[in-house]
């Protein structure tokens, strides 16, 4: 079954990863993780996301479009990327989540991808 792994990271980690010269180790940890998970053949799709400060949030209220700078909420951890993986059970998904570098500094959310639309 399919799960989405959402890689949440502290805002400062996401901010620094681009221009920090010490970020080599950070990128290496992600490269290793991606190498392993793609090598296992479980990845369906996924992407890294640009920094949260490049995000824009849209709401429509009373038929009027509201556009705001920034991600949807000011939280300590922000979404930095995601993968959709196809594994046998939640336990397998949790094992992959624990291996992610984001679990070291932030958190990794594991959510089943809804299959309802396909089944109906």
């Amino acid at each position, binding site marked *: 079954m399919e799960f989405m792994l959402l890689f949440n990271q502290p805002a400062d980690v996401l901010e620094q990863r681009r221009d920090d010269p010490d970020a080599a180790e950070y990128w290496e940890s992600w490269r290793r993780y991606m190498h392993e998970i793609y090598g296992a053949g479980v990845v369906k799709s996924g992407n890294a996301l*640009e920094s949260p*400060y*490049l995000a*824009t949030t849209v709401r429509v209220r009373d038929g009027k479009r*509201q*556009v*705001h*700078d*920034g991600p949807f909420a000011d939280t300590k951890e922000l979404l930095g990327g995601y993968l959709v993986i196809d594994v046998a059970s939640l336990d397998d998904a949790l094992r992959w989540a624990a291996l992610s570098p984001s679990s070291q500094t932030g958190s990794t959310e594991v959510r089943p991808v809804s299959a309802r639309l396909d089944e109906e």
Partner: protein
Amino acid sequence: MPAPPDHDPHAVAERVARESYGRLLSHLALRWRDVSAAEDALSEAFAAALATWPAAGVPQRPEAWLATVGRRKLADQMRGLAIRHRLDLEAFEAVEAVAPPDEPASDDRLRLMLVCAHPAIDASVRPALILQVVLGLDVKQMASAFLTAPDTLNKRLVRAKAKIKATRMRFEEPGPAALAERLHVLLEAIYAAYFIGSEGSLVDGDQHDTLGKDAVYLARLVATLLPHRAEALGFHALLLFSEARRAARTDARGDFVPLLEQEVSRWDGEMMRTAYELLATAAALEQPGPFQLEAAIHGAHCYRARSGEVPWREIALLYRSLVATHPTTGAIVGMAIAAARAASDPSAGLAILGELAPDVVRTYQPYWTARAHLLAEAGRLTESILAWEQALGLTTHPRLRRHLLRQLEAARDQTH
């Protein structure tokens, strides 16, 4: 802008910088939709001017010279980037081929300002961003007025420019319907800069209010670039009405004088006349909007200079129209005062104030000042003293504090 002949290259470079900075920057920024790269290229062009003009003489058209050199510097920068990132050099050459050499800088300031006022740009950074791209103000000049550490302000500006570039925001002028909305956001940002400037001048004196004057310059610029948008004209009128009263806002001791106690002889008649004319031109365009209404309210207050009386009934009606479409807390507080004065009944105003949600007004000083006045007029002196104390607690500006303290003491004296 053709500069008159001048033999001092430094003076010419400085004058061109002040007069045409925004024109040159927007011209360069539009080529690659990259504001930071354009800023770098333009500062290199100015450096080149200072290095070559003293020996070679000031060129006939300094602005065109700077535009050409700036374009070349920008192209070098972009070519370097394209090679480093192994991008398609053909696509690069296609963009570069668009401009014929030595074409005078086109005036794209409006487009650049509208990009800076994009709703996807952090609202708190828009005023500083616009001041920077149009007038070339640097972070140090702005940070103290914006009560922000220079590093923090710089970071926000860098991010805003990075977002413009990374998300490929459109530099095209929006269509008529979208333009009205974007123009409103742009004018709000300029208004914020003006407000920050005049707030600051309460702390350290009007001579330091360059930000306020820069905002008035921007208001005139937008009105000049959009002569058929009534809100642009109305906004320019609004700032002129406010500027006309600048000298009267402080007394001989440097203390704050509220609008209704100002000596009308110290208002600037010429500025008010220009503002009335702008407002009349705007009205003829038949595009009503909040800035025109706000300007009309200021204009009505300025009418006291002619008649000696404040036309409260008209002001109350104008506020009602404003609140109907733009019910901001400030407008509702203004409406409350006007309604009370128009009806000669403070309870009419207190009823309007009473409808505002407590958590909205808790930290809003004008609400407490208005409430204190109306309560005192209604003879509810004890409550009025409490409201003055609230207003005082929310004010840090020394001049405003002195004014509020005097009001509070007067209210206390009355109860004894």
